């Protein structure tokens, strides 16, 4: 069933109150839980301009940590 206001020409041409319609950062909905809660795609932080290889950085950090290199580096600092 189509949702109200969805692709309706009338609602599209309606002037909107900027106070009421402002931002509301919408997240991508992946689906719903059995109880009916919406499931959202993971958020990307708005303060980071482009994707970074953070997972790789963390893996390297964990490896260094296992070898004790991070403690040595911290001491050196």
């Amino acid at each position, binding site marked *: 069933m189509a949702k109200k206001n969805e692709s309706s020409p009338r609602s599209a041409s309606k002037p909107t109150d900027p106070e009421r319609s402002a931002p509301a950062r919408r997240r991508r909905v*992946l689906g719903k*839980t059995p109880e009916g809660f919406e499931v959202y795609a993971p958020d990307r932080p708005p303060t980071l301009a482009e994707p970074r290889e953070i997972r790789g950085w*963390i*893996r390297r950090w964990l490896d260094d940590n296992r070898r004790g290199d991070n403690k040595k580096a911290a001491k050196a600092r």
Partner: protein
Amino acid sequence: MSRAAAYSVFVNCPFDDGYRPLFRAVVFTILKCGFDPHCALELEDSGEVRIDKIADLVRRCRYGVHDLSRTELNDKGLPRFNMPFELGLFLGAKRFGGRAQKSKRTLVMDVERYRYQSFISDIGGQDVAAHKGEESRVIAAVRNFLNAPETQGAPAPSPRRIKADFAQCEDARRQWCADEGHDFDELPYLDLVWFMGEFVAALAD
């Protein structure tokens, strides 16, 4: 995506400097247990009325973690009412909402177990977890709350394991913040959740 990851958790906890380490422990525990944390801090950039934003967040989350430990008076001699108010909103949604809202689950924490009776006796009968301001107790309370049979195939990691991983995550984040020019203590909420989420994923790889 695990079944648990489908569920959002509303974090209704203090945001002040003194509570910050505990707040980060709550967020990390939620991620480590495979859930998706949400709180009012993620709404700062929106132009909507604040109560509408919070109500929408409450509506979207099946689980609620509420910490009532900040009842002290501020420098104007007034207490903070936001946390008890948002707890009330959450319990109201559960009571009067539809099928999904009625399935909501709530964790209420305070410094001491029965202290709440002196300032919010209406929630009497609710099982309140006492954390005494200790990180280990906060982690255990949130972990045990989310270790629910209806969402978890296998038990969540032990509180001790979560605490050790959290300590590592904070060390890594300290270095990453220094490298990237972020303030460790002032890292915006979404960046914090993103980093912690990636750290949890890297540990699981």
